[in-house]
């Protein structure tokens, strides 16, 4: 058989026996820099839909968690009852497929506009309060269960890490500088460090008619201030046009903060969320700068990466409008 998926077939048989078979293989488009493959695993007794993810771009300036650490943090989150695709197995050296892992496939919708169209106001509030409960559960995980995250740069000093990344791209951005200066001068008192998802935003969770099904994309997980997750969720870009609904385009802040506290989360200081939202805008602007840097300087070329470089100023505009109080 040479359907282009022999590597996955062989990896599956190494773990589930020679009779295991894969079927209904689908490669989703817009997979970005990873190879993503969906397939049914048939091991003789059951059929299960799974997702394979492999890193295809691993530059040293890649700010994301290695696949093995993503897999381990998902294992911990899954064991603690956080809705997350069940981690199934990690690729190893014998597979010869580089870094990657296989997890359960969770059906549903991730595309923001489709989710917005599919639910009414009550459904949106339900999604937002589900997100709050999910975060409360995630933040409650004992950080001693994820010791491997302690040495991640984002865990040591997330703001300092993004300043270092920004400097490494060697492009002057007065708006980003002003954002960093504001963060330097307005940092809220640090509270206890907790497990942070790090990329918890609309588009990165799976939704069904009944509510939120799973948190996806764990490559930015680290240990830090839990309000970072709320700040990122509220970043204007992640409202996808629903600008009057700061919680990811789904809801107002107050009921969602209340739902977080009711689910066992620490009391929320809205000023701390605003601080991390400003950081989120700075961070998202830097991501865009990073894509242009990889396009111009690192040979990872493409029209989408070129556009992201120019789109950095759109985020800078939102940052400045937020800093000046016009946007909230």
């Amino acid at each position: 058989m040479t359907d282009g998926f022999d590597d996955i077939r062989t990896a599956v048989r190494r773990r589930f026996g020679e009779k295991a078979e894969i079927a209904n293989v689908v490669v989703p488009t817009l997979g970005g820099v990873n190879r993503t493959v969906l397939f049914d695993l048939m091991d003789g007794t059951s059929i299960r839909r799974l997702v394979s993810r492999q890193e295809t771009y691993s530059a040293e300036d890649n700010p994301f968690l290695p696949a093995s650490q993503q897999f381990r943090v998902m294992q911990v989150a899954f064991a603690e009852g956080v809705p997350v695709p069940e981690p199934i197995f990690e690729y190893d050296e014998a597979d010869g497929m580089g870094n990657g892992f296989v997890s359960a496939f969770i059906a549903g919708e991730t595309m923001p506009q489709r989710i917005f169209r599919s639910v009414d106001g009550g459904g949106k509030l339900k999604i937002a309060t589900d997100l709050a409960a999910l975060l409360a559960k995630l933040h409650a995980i004992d950080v001693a269960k994820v010791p491997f995250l302690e040495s991640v740069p984002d865990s040591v000093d997330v703001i300092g890490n993004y300043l270092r990344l920004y400097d490494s791209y060697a492009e002057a951005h007065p708006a980003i500088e002003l954002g960093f200066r504001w963060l330097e001068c307005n940092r809220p008192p640090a509270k206890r460090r907790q497990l942070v998802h790090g990329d918890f935003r609309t588009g990165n969770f799976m939704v069904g008619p009944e509510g939120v099904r799973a948190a996806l994309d764990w490559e930015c997980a680290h240990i830090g201030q839990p309000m970072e997750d709320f700040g990122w969720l509220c970043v204007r870009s992640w409202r996808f046009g629903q600008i009057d609904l700061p919680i990811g385009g789904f809801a107002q802040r107050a009921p969602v903060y209340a739902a977080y506290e009711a689910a066992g989360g620490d009391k929320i200081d809205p000023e701390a969320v605003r601080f991390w939202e400003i950081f989120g805008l700075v961070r998202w602007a830097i991501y865009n700068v990073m894509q242009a840097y990889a396009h111009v300087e690192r040979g990872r070329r493409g029209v989408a990466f070129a556009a992201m470089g120019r789109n950095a100023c759109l985020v800078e505009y939102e940052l400045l409008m937020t800093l000046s109080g016009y946007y909230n």
Partner: protein
Amino acid sequence: MSQDRPSINDILLTVQKFLDDTGPKLEGEAKYHAQVSSYLLGICERELRLAGDFDRKEAVQLADFLGSGAPLDAMTAEFCANIRAGKYDKNWDQTLELILAQTIDKVKVVKPGHLALMHRNAH
């Protein structure tokens, strides 16, 4: 060098129209990339029209703010270093206003519809 018709802006808009007409007939990633390509050509067309004025205005404003003139790149680098060193902490609002004005001009080139109404027609 004087070129014959059409102008460079006309050429860009013509190719952009082709992409806008053809893109929707494509599938998946190609369709998305056609959309992004059209977007990029729009940026080129606006930059050719607007960037000269914007750069001159920015250089004058920065030289005024810094107290001495230099090439735009050098002034921007100095401006950034000063922000980081906290030199403008005491005139924060004025600094923010200057950066916002520069950023509005960048957005006018990249995606003018992204601006709040209060900034769409101000020049």
